[in-house]
């Protein structure tokens, strides 16, 4: 990819990231949103994160078929417990990476 290709891609990504961050601040700073919208929006982060994780943890992504018990899922259990106890984002990432790295040695 050339400089212009990257600029177009990252510029586009930046724009679609910036607009949802900016629009509510710009327009809603003086207005009140309806309660149903606030309640519904508050559930979106959980739903998106689970949707992103689901195929990684429960499917064989090359064959696009169900797979229970892959290393990604097994490592997720202690990683989740660590996140719950520590409340640390950086720490959880390091623990998850370390455990996943170790399972790589056990499998091969």
């Amino acid at each position, binding site marked *: 990819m050339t400089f212009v290709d990257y600029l177009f891609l990252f510029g586009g990504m930046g724009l*679609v990231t910036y607009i949802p961050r900016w629009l509510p601040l710009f327009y809603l700073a003086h207005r009140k949103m309806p309660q149903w919208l606030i309640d519904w929006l508050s559930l*979106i982060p959980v739903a998106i994160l689970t*949707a992103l994780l689901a*195929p990684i943890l429960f499917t064989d992504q090359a064959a696009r078929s169900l797979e229970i018990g892959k290393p990604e899922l097994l490592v997720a259990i202690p990683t989740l417990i660590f996140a719950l106890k520590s409340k640390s984002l*950086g720490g959880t990432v390091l623990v*998850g*990476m370390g455990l996943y790295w170790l399972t790589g040695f056990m499998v091969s």
Partner: protein
Amino acid sequence: MTAWPICFGYIPIGLALGVLASQAGIPAWAVTMMSALVFAGSAQFICVAMLAAGASTGSIIFTTFAVNLRHFLMSSSLAVHLSGVRRLFLNFFAYGITDESFAVNMTRFRAGNWGRWQAITVNQLANLAWVVSTTCGALLGQFIPVGAFGTDYALTAMFLALLIFQLHDIIFIFTGLASLCIAVLWYLFIPGDSYIIGASISAATIGYFLKRYREKRR
């Protein structure tokens, strides 16, 4: 001082992202450009994975939009604490709204002893840590074997942590479980990446009606 835990949290994630990007053949200057223009950890990981898989520019931008739409809610909540502030300030402030800076700033705003200049300082320091650590990762990437240190799992671990931090009560847990089931089925039967938006909108709607039902029964 408040920004320190965020910066510290960004360093391993940023390094991992930089390493993965460099192994996917993305040059270091492009990684710096991406971090400065986008400044969104999870979307950048997804972008690297999609570029490595040969995805089109359009589908990467659409997925970024879907994944980062959650900031809409965060920005809406922050708006309550920034009412009456000049729009020029808000334009700059919006750029720095991330999951982590939102969590820190919201907690401080609620506690009361927090101002907009302190909040934007947190945002900017976090941004600096992010750009520097992703660039360092990209420069180091060529010296690190593919898959070493579990870098492939960095994104998954970050999602798991962010998910745990979001589970405020039982409704959130049910929403997550609904999203999980819908996403797996959608992913298995419908080709493409529509499962992300499809499962999250359906699950949030189910969660919303569960919440309404629970409130009516009280």
